[in-house]
């Protein structure tokens, strides 16, 4: 704080260093700015903007890496839309996004509400619940999942006790996707932490006032908590659904490297990987990638549009 006090007292002999006016000062600031962010500018041009243009071009070509790309117009897109495996991959991905995202967020919110209460050991719980979000992406956990959900393993046997017999989730095309959903839900810690931070910001006076007015816990949740955390809810919905669209590793590892059985876990990126890197159909894969970009952009746009209806932003937030 002493620094603040001293600031106006300029040491004698030094040029006043407030040349915000002066074209040279402004030019120097511009130069400094661009120099500091030169890594990002290089990265953006070389690894983001350039590749985007390239992949847009590839999307309209037939390209196998070994011979130069050949322009084919919309062929990739028309073949793609008629390709039954592509259709299957869209179906699998949508099913995954629509089932996994809400369940994961519901659990995250539920546990966040639990942890928002002041109790002994809440820090430990919070840390433990967050851990799967970090290790869940690893191949190790993929193996563990495979072992837990395979035929005659723990999950299978446990449900037999209750009279279901599905012959293991991993080998069953009707169930295998839900083992991936379970893996995604298990990683509820990251959105939970964000919910918790949001819950902390809700002014306690609101609850006290509502209680005085005789509002029960359900009313208070519905009329105070939910609107107050709606920006955080929006952020989580956006982030988690975008992530869910791009799931790859777990599908590849858990349900053997062919994303099966019977293409039951052929998520979009798994098919993209097969087309691009197994079959060297770079043009087709690029067309798939751009279709994904458009789909994600549409979902983002719809979410942003819908937030007017349900996301409550505090006026004059500091």
């Amino acid at each position: 704080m002493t620094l603040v006090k001293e600031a106006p007292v300029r040491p004698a002999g030094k040029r006043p260093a407030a040349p915000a006016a002066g074209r040279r000062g402004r030019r120097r600031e511009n130069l400094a700015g661009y120099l500091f962010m030169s890594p990002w500018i290089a990265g953006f041009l070389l690894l983001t903007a350039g590749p985007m243009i390239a992949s847009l071009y590839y999307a309209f070509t037939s390209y196998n890496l070994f011979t130069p790309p050949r322009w084919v117009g919309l062929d990739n897109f028309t073949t793609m839309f008629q390709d039954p495996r592509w259709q299957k991959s869209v179906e699998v991905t949508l099913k995954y996004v629509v089932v996994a995202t809400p369940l994961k967020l519901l659990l995250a919110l539920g546990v966040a509400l639990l942890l928002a209460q002041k109790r002994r050991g809440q820090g430990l719980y919070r840390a433990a619940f967050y851990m799967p979000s970090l290790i869940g992406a690893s191949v190790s956990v993929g193996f563990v999942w495979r072992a837990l959900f395979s035929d005659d393993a723990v999950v299978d046997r446990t449900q037999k006790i209750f009279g279901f017999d599905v012959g293991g989730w991993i080998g069953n095309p009707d169930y295998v996707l839900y083992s991936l959903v379970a893996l995604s839900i298990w990683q509820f810690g990251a959105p939970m932490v964000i919910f918790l931070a949001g819950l902390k910001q809700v002014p306690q006076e609101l609850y006290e006032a509502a209680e005085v007015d005789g509002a029960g816990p359900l009313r208070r949740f519905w009329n105070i908590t939910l609107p107050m955390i709606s920006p955080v809810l929006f952020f989580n919905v956006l982030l988690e659904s975008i992530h869910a669209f791009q799931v790859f590793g777990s599908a590849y590892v858990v349900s053997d490297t062919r994303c099966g059985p019977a293409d039951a876990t052929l998520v979009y990126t798994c098919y993209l990987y097969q087309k691009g890197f197994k079959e060297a159909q770079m043009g087709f894969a690029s067309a798939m990638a751009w279709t994904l970009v458009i789909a994600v952009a549409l979902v983002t746009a719809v979410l942003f549009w819908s937030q007017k209806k349900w996301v409550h932003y505090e006026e004059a937030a500091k």
Partner: protein
Amino acid sequence: MTSATSPALHTANERRRVGSIAWHVGALAVLAVVLYPVIWVLGASFKPSKDIIASLDLLPTKPVWANFSGLADGISGISISSFFWNSLMYAVLAVAGVVLSSSLTAYAFAKIRFAGRNLLFTLMIGTLLLPYHVLLIPQYVLFRNLELTDTLVPLVAGKFLATEAFFVFLMVQFMRGLPRELDEAAKLDGCGHLRTYWSIVLPLSRPALITSAIFTFINAWNDFMGPLIYLNTPEKYTVSLGLMMFRDQEGISNYGSMIAMSLVALVPVIAFFMTFQRYLIDGMATSGLKG
């Protein structure tokens, strides 16, 4: 008076205690589900291979060491330590790259007023939402043409060029929160931007830098798609690919060692997490809130 309030007090206390018990029961139930796979893998790594799938016990009845000692043989002639060394190199380079390049970029966005700043910031945020699969194929073509596949360069180049917008964003948010008086004072004392960045802003941004560093380390350690696409000699494989190789070579016959190696592969991540969980969780929470 006392006779009227004491039963009420009594029930309030009782209700609080019941609430507390219910809370702990709920939290423990979630904890059991969350920790089950972790404890299972710990137990399974000490079970004989044939018991791993077949046995319902969480912990082994007779613990064996064979799964771990089997790891010493390596996988088709490659020692396990080679995979770990490769992953470590990848992770360390990634951390160095992200911390250096993202903090420079973040400083520019947070502390320098230059023309076009807002436009570039919007572009940077935009890349956050871009599915990276659209860049996957052209980047692969680029690195292939540069003859850099089968090296770590394609995996870490982006980290040195601040392409991980999430970390830039995290650092910008943090640096914007630093008192403006500090860098104004430094400026009056004749410090240039480089000096201000290095001796004032960087040390004060330590929490944001540590958060980014740990996330980067863990992401690099867990990364699967990157190595899968770019690395093709087994000697250069990271732990993720080593694990996949293990599965392909040994299959179900050597389930025990596969599970043991899965556990060993998780150790660095879990150790990092336990040491720095406070930073990680808070970093996660702040970046979410200000989004």
